[in-house]
């Protein structure tokens, strides 16, 4: 998660949720996100809530981290219970970071075991971890699979050395096929993250990265346009003119190239930046975010959502650990969405999905905008006739504009 936290209402220290959050909970999917805020080095473009050992200065050590998170999970089970939220087995679990695989697999396994003990895992549950290609070994992946992980998402980013260098990545391109092979051998599904639009990346570079990724036949692929986040080292380097800025047209060209190559390789988009080989290969955990399901987010800076109440934890690992040690909720703030905000988020998130947004769920102002979106080639006409707002290829690149038009007031 990005490092700046929203401003919200104060969150109670016992973690009890408003009664609106509990209503209807028995019918909703339930997921768990576990944030691991550690990385070996900080990449120049990244503003996620993550820390290198040097940045933490020895304070909250990586070794103590798993027990701390386990404590939050226990706290979570109690708080949900006290709030009257129906206890349900987990549909998805996602370990993200940071670099989760910087911790020993045994730590991740123990956390997963705690979750399973508290809530249980539904049969066929999706359990993912993010990983850097150079932070896994055949043994560590085997151990994860044995503990119940089903999926690993590698931060490949690019296959081109000069691009990886600008991104400050530590792994070499050759490491990725190996990591993928080991994951396969351990029985894990594989997803790859790519970044396009890095300063200095030529269209051929991007094409080569796509080819390299596709030759590994991933089950799932995310392609993100590089965002130059304020306050990052890369933003400073661009401002000083040390690396060239990248314009939106370059991003658009590369997005179109990605869609072409991925489609040709038999993958289909299901969200603006995400493609899967089959419907089963879609990342159900991410879909849960976009469809407004319930999930608990554990770890510093992690975000949670249950029945229209969102909250987020304190950002710094030390502050986070102190809260839990004191038996208090680690939440920094929260907000309970009113109907208007819920509607806005629903449109905002689901419009980005290939399954689209039902026109019947739009308010009158939103329905009014549909014809114009068809006329401008931003949504697919046939889908609209069927009652679904689905982005066209052009519309995917202009999705924010489409959303603004669907939410005119």
């Amino acid at each position: 998660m990005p490092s700046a936290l929203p401003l919200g209402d104060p969150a109670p220290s016992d973690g009890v949720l408003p009664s609106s959050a509990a209503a209807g909970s028995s019918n909703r999917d339930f997921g768990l996100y576990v944030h691991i805020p550690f990385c070996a080095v900080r990449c120049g473009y990244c503003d996620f809530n993550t820390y290198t050992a040097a940045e933490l200065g020895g304070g909250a050590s990586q070794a103590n981290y798993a027990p701390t998170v386990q404590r939050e999970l226990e706290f979570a089970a109690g708080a949900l219970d006290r709030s009257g939220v129906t206890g349900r087995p987990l549909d998805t679990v996602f370990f993200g970071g940071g670099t989760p695989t910087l911790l020993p697999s045994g730590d991740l396994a123990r956390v997963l075991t705690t979750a399973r003990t508290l809530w249980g895992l539904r049969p066929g549950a999706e359990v993912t971890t993010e990983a850097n290609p150079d932070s896994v070994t055949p043994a560590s992946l085997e151990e994860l699979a044995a503990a119940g992980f089903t999926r690993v998402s590698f931060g490949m980013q690019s296959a081109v050395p000069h691009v990886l260098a600008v991104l400050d990545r530590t792994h070499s391109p050759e490491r990725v096929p190996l990591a993928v092979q080991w994951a396969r051998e351990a029985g894990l599904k594989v997803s790859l993250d790519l970044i396009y639009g890095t300063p200095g990346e030529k269209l051929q570079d991007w094409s080569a990265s796509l080819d390299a990724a596709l030759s590994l036949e991933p089950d799932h692929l995310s392609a993100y346009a590089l965002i130059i986040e304020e306050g990052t080292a890369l933003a400073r380097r661009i401002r000083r003119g040390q690396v060239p800025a990248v314009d939106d047209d370059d991003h658009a060209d590369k997005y179109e190239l990605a869609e072409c190559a991925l489609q040709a390789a038999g993958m289909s988009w299901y969200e603006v930046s995400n493609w899967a080989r089959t419907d089963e290969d879609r990342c159900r955990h991410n879909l849960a975010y976009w469809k407004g399901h319930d999930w608990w987010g554990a770890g510093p800076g992690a975000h949670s959502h249950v029945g229209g109440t969102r909250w987020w934890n304190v950002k710094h690992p030390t502050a986070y650990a102190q809260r839990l040690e004191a038996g208090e909720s680690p939440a920094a703030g929260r907000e309970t969405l009113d109907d208007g905000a819920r509607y806005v988020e629903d449109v905002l998130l689901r419009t980005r999905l290939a399954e689209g947004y039902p026109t019947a769920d739009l308010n009158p102002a939103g329905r009014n905008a549909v014809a114009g979106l068809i006329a401008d080639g931003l949504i697919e006409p046939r889908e609209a006739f069927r009652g679904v707002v689905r982005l066209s290829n052009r519309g995917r690149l202009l999705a924010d504009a489409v959303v603004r038009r669907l939410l005119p007031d």
Partner: protein
Amino acid sequence: MSPMARTAPVPAATDPAIIRNFCIIAHIDHGKSTLADRMLQLTGVVEQRDMKAQYLDRMDIERERGITIKSQAVRLPWELDGVSYALNMIDTPGHVDFTYEVSRSLAACEGAILLVDAAQGIEAQTLANLYLAMENDLTIIPVLNKIDLPAAQPEKYAAELANLIGGKPEDVLLVSGKTGVGVEALLDKIVSDLPAPVGDASAPARAMIFDSVYDTYRGVVTYVRVVDGHLSPRERIQMMSTRASHELLEIGVSSPEPTPSKGLGVGEVGYLITGVKDVRQSKVGDTVTNLAKPASSSLSGYADPKPMVFSGLYPLDGADYPVLRDALEKLMLNDAALVYEPETSAALGFGFRVGFLGLLHLEITRERLEREYNLSLISTAPNVEYEVTLEDKSVVHVTNPSEYPAGKIAEVREPMVSATILAPNEFVGTIMELCQGRRGVMGGMDYLSEDRVEIRYRLPLAEIVFDFFDMLKSRTRGYASLDWKADGDQVADLVKVDIMLQGEQVDAFSAITHRDKAYAYGVMMTGKLRELIPRQQFEVPIQAAIGARIIARENIRAIRKDVLAKCYGGDITRKRKLLEKQKEGKKRMKMVGRVEVPQEAFIAALSSDESKDKARK
């Protein structure tokens, strides 16, 4: 050295013989308001701890820009040779746009302090204001200010001043408004040299209205100078032009806060409150008299200031039109120079065509409307007024390019000005080149001193009213000063240049220009708009045309990407906030056809490159 007056003469019972009415006139920034500060302090009307620089510049805009916009009158006590006098001082603005404020103030005075910056010497508005003072038969006290400055050249400029008004250099007083040096001597000289007002105390009252200001709490406050007779609280007064009568709810003097008095007598300067809500009922230049004993003839007033520059003002949000209408109405209560009428624009919707005295006046009015009435406004390219004669001999007055008749034009006349430029003689060539480029015709040139010249030109108003002054300043390293006044009209070869976005004419950017300059305007405007209008979901051609002939074109390519690709994990709140921010940004756009044009584009496109962001001094 005179002490501060021990007992101030009481208003309404002051013998005209101990009254001195004067104003401070000067070129902009020569230090009028600062000198006024010292007078407020020395005479004790403002306590030391309440003092702040340019005390009389009270409007936010005046303080921010460091210039005076409205004249302010203050009554000051001063003692000389054991006699207490009542001085009425009027601080005036120096900018050429507000010359009419100066001329109104002059009519309330017997004398004027002609202030000249001792490091700058005589400048164009020094001459203009001196001329106005002499026309009003005022006694002039020449004063050099800022003698504390290391760059001051008192001998040189004293000679220049003496030469100008006729007198000896030794008669020129040397002061510093900053340190206060010489200010007491100046106050003494005001008492000894300026004539006392004369009037008939027993005649029916005649008081000249020289300012009229709308105040939210007190209604209209009218500033008068009593010439004959006497005005008393609670009596009924009459406005001689309209014959309307009002009760005098309050009468008093400013010192410098409003202080009610038992009335005002011959020669006194003060204010009246009658409860009227509209300054037009209490018009500047009108004569106030007693209803019970009215005067038979009014004092000669002054001509209404004539608007020189016209611009359309439109609310960014069409729903704000009624707010803008009310705001203009209120502002007009305070600003007799403001004229307006409703107009509609194909591109901008409902708005007003407003007449101004100059570009600074436009800028300030716009800023006040935005600030005091919380409006977001678009102002269209400023225009002068053209007189177009059609082939059928009918005459149209055009203040808005969109009203420019198509075809069948027999003749177009444009307003002219006579301009006076003062500068060191090394710049004569540059200045002549600039004026010639602006279609000017030289009227003459005089040496003020060995190395400073006065150059006179007759120029089309349209050529000088926008960026001319900034050009003049930058080409003369800031040394030249300019003054101008209206001077008839002339036939000119003018054309209308239309600007089109996506083939749709946007009247806000159209202009009437000389035929030789149409191409340059078209290239400049299309180029600027290309920079200022963000990319849209479709391609936007920008064209400049004279009639059907395209003279310049640019193209804004369609935007291809408007989506954040990154997964924000579960931080949906941030995504929603981002959407709100994007939508906020869109609200600051004006829809022109289908094109979203940012408000800044209207402002920036209409100002010339050189004049952007610069203080107009």
